[in-house]
Structure formats: C-alpha cells, structure tokens
C-alpha cells in the first residue's frame, strides 16, 4: 500500500480476529490491484494490449469511479497516466527528454479505453494505475468489514499510509484526532478532529523530485506529461468515505491554484498547507 498502515479498534471483545479480517482484506486488494505484483489483475490488464480483458464487477466499478473523477477534473485525474511514471524517476532526479514525454502522452487518455460487457480494452503501451483510488478504497473496504463484523457502532481508525477512515467516535463520544504531518519537520502540523468518515492527504512532501533546486510533485499532469508544480505542500480533505476524500484531495493538488475553489465547490472540510507551511482551514460549517 506504499507506506506504513495502522489499525486501531475499540472493542469489548478480543479484536484479534477483527485485525486478521481487515488485514486479509488489505492483502486481497494489494494482490489484485498492485502494479508491482506480476500476477495482479492490474498487471494482467496492463499487459493486455489491444484486446479485451474480462473484469469483475469490483474492477468495473473502480473504472467507473475513475471515469467520474476524470470527468469532474477535466481530465487531470487520469488513471491511464501511469506510463508517465516510467519516464519520471523520483529516485534519480533525472528529467526525461521532450521526445520521451511526447511518446508517453500518446499512450495516455482515459477516453481511449473501451469498457463494456466484454471487459476492458486498452491501447498498446497504456499503463493503468489505480494510485489515488485503491489505497483509499482499501480503507473503506476494511472499515466496511469491521462495521459488518463488529457492529455498526464499532469505533475504529484505519490508516492506510495516510488515507484514513474513522468508523465512529471513540468511547465517550471523543473525536479521533487525525494528525497532519508537517512537510519538513514530520511532526504534526495540525490535528483534525473526526467523528466518522474519510480523511486523506495528498502532498508532495513524501514523494517528490527536486531538480536544480526546483521541487516537483509526484503527481503528474496527464495533459502536459510533467509533474505538478504544486501550489500546496499538502491538501487534506474530510469526506463521507476515504475514496471520495482521496479523489477530492488529489484533484485539488492537481488543480494547483484552483484547488481551493474546487474544494469550496465540493463543500467538504479541508486543510491546505501552502509552500510557506501556512495552514488554511475551512470547516464547512
């Protein structure tokens, strides 16, 4: 899931089985949608150039959700931009050539996908990446399992490498305090009190590329092929669930200056940290 994960459960009963249950669910999704596992469904889709690959309802629904994000973000949130990551190496800090970028962009574009009853058909070379959806979706799935298994009043916090889902307040109606990391110090820059719902953060402080002193986000603009030179060091959003909060925060990052307007329009509570590390909060009350 790309980072450390954490599960906290308040339970009157022995919670070991609950932990086993939700960890198994996280592993299921990791095995199914990881780009790095050779036998994952996503890897098989990425290998299936120019032919239909049969997909199950869950995968089809994920593509459907990705399409909604693509449309709402005017094409900025595009799960087909995965191929761009091959030319942007965030470890070596080396810039790709213009030709490389143009070549990649020819393989990018959600509208080039065909999804119907036969499955999915993608153009040769296109790489699909569910980053920005699956980690958040995993938090939701795990929470859903917990709520089913332990009762709808179970109090739990699931943190999937920064994407959080809170099922219910802590005992005595205490809010869960979700810490937002300071981009530099790695301490908490803010605490978001959350009763229930998803809290996700998109930022360029954990994965980024710095070239000639200029800092580029790990988020790539599928229209230009370049990383986003972000207005925001981080964007945190509280949403009805993690997957909605996650796409809201990712699209806000991708939109740069317009990100704040996007969040205001959504009317979801948010916390923005700008490049000077000042916080901007809108509780949407």
């Amino acid at each position, binding site marked *: 899931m790309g980072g450390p994960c954490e599960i906290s459960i308040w339970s009157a009963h022995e919670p070991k089985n609950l932990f086993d249950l939700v960890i198994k669910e996280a592993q299921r999704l990791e095995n199914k949608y990881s780009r790095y596992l050779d036998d994952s469904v996503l890897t098989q889709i990425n290998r299936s150039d120019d032919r239909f690959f049969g997909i199950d309802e869950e995968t089809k629904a994920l593509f459907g959700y990705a399409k909604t*994000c693509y449309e709402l973000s005017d094409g900025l949130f595009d799960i087909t931009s995965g191929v761009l990551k091959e030319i942007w190496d965030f470890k070596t800090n080396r810039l790709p050539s213009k030709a490389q970028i143009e070549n990649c962009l020819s393989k990018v574009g959600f509208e080039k996908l065909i999804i119907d009853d036969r499955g999915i058909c993608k153009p040769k070379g296109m790489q699909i990446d569910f980053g920005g959806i699956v980690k958040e979706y995993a938090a939701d799935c795990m929470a859903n399992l917990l709520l089913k298994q332990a009762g709808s009043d179970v109090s739990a916090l699931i943190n999937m490498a920064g994407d959080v889902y809170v099922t219910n307040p802590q005992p005595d109606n205490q809010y869960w305090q979700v810490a937002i990391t300071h981009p530099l110090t790695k301490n908490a820059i803010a605490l978001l009190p959350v009763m229930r719902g998803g809290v996700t953060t998109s930022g360029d402080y954990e994965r980024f590329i710095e070239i000639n002193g200029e800092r580029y986000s790990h988020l790539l603009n599928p229209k230009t092929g370049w990383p986003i030179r972000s207005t925001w060091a981080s964007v945190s959003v509280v949403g009805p669930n993690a997957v909605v909060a996650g796409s809201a925060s990712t699209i806000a990052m991708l939109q740069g200056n317009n990100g704040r307007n996007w969040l205001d329009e959504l009317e979801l509570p948010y916390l923005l940290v700008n490049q000077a590390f000042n916080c901007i909060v809108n509780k949407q009350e």
Partner: protein
Amino acid sequence: MKTNSKLLALTASAMTLPGIVLQAQATSAPVESEVGYRLSGYFESDIPEERVITGTNERYDILVNQFHLLHPINDHAVITYEGTLETLSGASQYFSTYVDNNDNGQFDADVDSVGVHMSGASIEEMRIDSYVGARFYKSKTEESEAAGNYGGKVGFSLENDYLSLTIAADGAMEFDDAHTTLAAGASYSHDTLSPTPASDTVAAIDDNTAPGRKYASIYDKRNSMSVFVGVGQIVNPTMVVQANASFTLKLGSGVLTDPYREYNSMAIDSRPGTRAMFTFSTGLRKALPDIDTAIHADYRFYWDDWGILSNTISLAWQPRFIVDTDAAEGVMAHLSDNDVAFDISPTLRYYHQTSSSFYEILSEDDFINLIGDGVVDTNTGDEYLFLYQDSNGEQIYSSNDPRLAAYGAISGGMGLRVEYLDFAFVSNFELYTSSPGLGIQNRDQELHNAMDYFRFSVGFDYKF
C-alpha cells in the same frame, strides 16, 4: 455533510464500489433539536348559485396553524410534539335531491336537475390537535445485524362536538447495510361524537328522546384500528423503490353516519357500521446527479368494502439550485459565506374513484318514504327518529355525500424549499379540480357539487 452536484456525482459513483462504506448504514438519532411552523389555507370554491335549492352557496375555508418540535434526549432517542389549531368557516351541506322533471320516479341525468340544500348561514368551528411522542434508534450490533428505529405517540383531537383519542406505534428495521428497510405500524383511535343541532327548532342534544337528535352512530362512539407494513429498497445509489400496504378498520357502535347530513332536522345519511379499507402504494425516487434533480413517481391503490376503489398517480420533479453567496450580488451578497439552496418541486396528480355501493341521489319524496316513523333503541327504550328501515325493519344504507360518488380529479402544484444555515423556509400551493368527467365510472353522471379548491402552506424549520 452537505451535498452539491459534484460531491453528489463523486459519492454516487463511489457507492457503486462493492466494498464502500454506506453512510446510511447506521440509523442514528437526530443530534439537533428542530422546531417548525406551518400556516396552511384551504379554500373550496362556492357552489354555483343555480345548484343551491336552499341556504347559502359558500363552502368551507379552513386555516390551519401547525407547530412541531423535535428534541434529542440522548444519542439514541428523541421526543416529539405536534400541535394543530384549525379554524373552519363556511356553510354545511345538508343533502342533495333531484327534481323529477319527467315525473317518472327515478333520476334521469339528461332531464332531471340536481340541487343542494345547504345550511342557511356560515358556521365557525375550531379544532385542536395535540400529540406527544418518542422515538428510539437502534444501531447494528454484534448480536443483531439489523438497525432501525421505533416510536409512538399519544394525543387527542378536539372539536366542540368531537373528541378523538389516538395511540399509535411504528417501527422500521434496516437490513443488508440499509439497502432494505421494512416498516410496520399500528394505530387505534377512540372517537366520541356529540353532534349539535343546527336549527333552533331542534331539541336539546342531551335529550335522547327528542326528535331531531343527531347521531353519528347509535351510541356516538367510533373506533378505528389501522395497521400498515412497508418495504423500501435501494436499487442503486441513485434509485430507491418503496412499497407500502395498509389495512384500516373503522368500527362504529351501530351505524356510521355523517350527522350533519339531515332532512328536516333528521339524519338522512345511513352507512354500514364498519368500514374496512385497504391501500397499496408504491413509489420510485430517481436522482439525476448530473443535473442536480430528482424525480418522484408514486402510485396508490385503494379499496374499501363500501365499494369504493381508487387509483392515484403523482409525479414530482425536484431540481435543486444553489446560489453561491460569495459571487452573488444584491441581497444575496449580504448573506454570510454560506450557499443558499433552492428546491423547487412542481407536482402533478391524477385521482379517480368509483362510487360507493349505497351512493344515490334521491328525490324529496324518496326521503320521506325512507325515513319512516321512528326507531326504538332496545338498550335504553328511548324512541327517536333515526335512519332508514325497510318494511321488515332492516337497515337500508343510503348516502348522497359527494365524497362517495364516482369522480376524477386533477391537481397541480408547486413547492419551494429554501435552505440557509440552519433555517429552511418551506412553501407550496395546489390547485385542484374534480368532476365525474375526469373519472372512469359514470362519467356522464351529474355530480351535484363537484369541487375545486386552492390550498397553500408556508412555514419554516429551524435546527438548533
């Protein structure tokens, strides 16, 4: 959490994901108190002058003040109060007869004319309703998959000639992560009626032996019992279907009548002592998030053992408009940094019913023949003039109440709800017209007082 078109689109799309957490899964008690007020007006059109044989042609105007309060007492329970003050003015309709123009002893719609006998003067009446209730909310637990709520209320409805005591309970359980909701309820009412004479020539109402004593039923008591069951199903994130069935039994002590339908101060309305009523209704709610709109379509079937069968179809369109006060000009610009949401809902409804088996229009001679000389109450030994009997002393049922006739009706209206901060302003109006020609049975039959009305309601809700 607020909703707008983009958030709605994201949320609706997310809810197609099989593992997503449904926000509706836990039935939770309201966390805020709410007060509300409505002022409603209901105005019936006058009866055409040419239809009125005696009395005035005014019909009812009704003004209703309603107040409601909801207050959470803890995380799982709320208490509620509902109060109504209603004032009514207008003339009461006594009965309808036809003039036998071709003198053949029966009503011929083509030849004979129907007229209405109304009370001579407008009356003023008041009704007070008061109900208190409680509702409890249950979350899904380790022991039980189902979440739900249950509650009840008790109260009274009081008029100068009528007291009704009501107790009601209902509950709803949610299953399958709130995709399926089952609901059931029951209510019981005990009514005491003491109809008042409209004419000075009629003796005091406490004297059971007096001619002209009005009876709603022999002992002026009426009980009603009602049960209902319902099921709701979320088909997908943007569509919900629901179905409900109810059964109601009205049980009078003796014969149910409308005591104010009279002829020469004698009741001329005779209906069976029981009435069993069955309804089945189904509805569809379809959200169209791309255009911030919802469509409601409803159908209701009704049947009772008095012979009335009705069908109702209604359609409502509910677009939502949101004004961004940051960008607004004029008055809106003075509002604080919160959007104003407008819900406008045009509605259209069609209704038709068949006639009751004992609905009939009689001539005045028929009334005299039917009323007879009088009836002895075997319980008290009192003799009083009462209702129809045949030559064997058997009860004859007959009523010319137009509400029991065959007719159809169309109504159209518009609702407006404006939300700003914790306030909601609500208003709606409806125009209604009815006639036999709009129905599907006896369409050429003359309905002696087919009615039109105008209804409005304005009010507010405030959460705190």
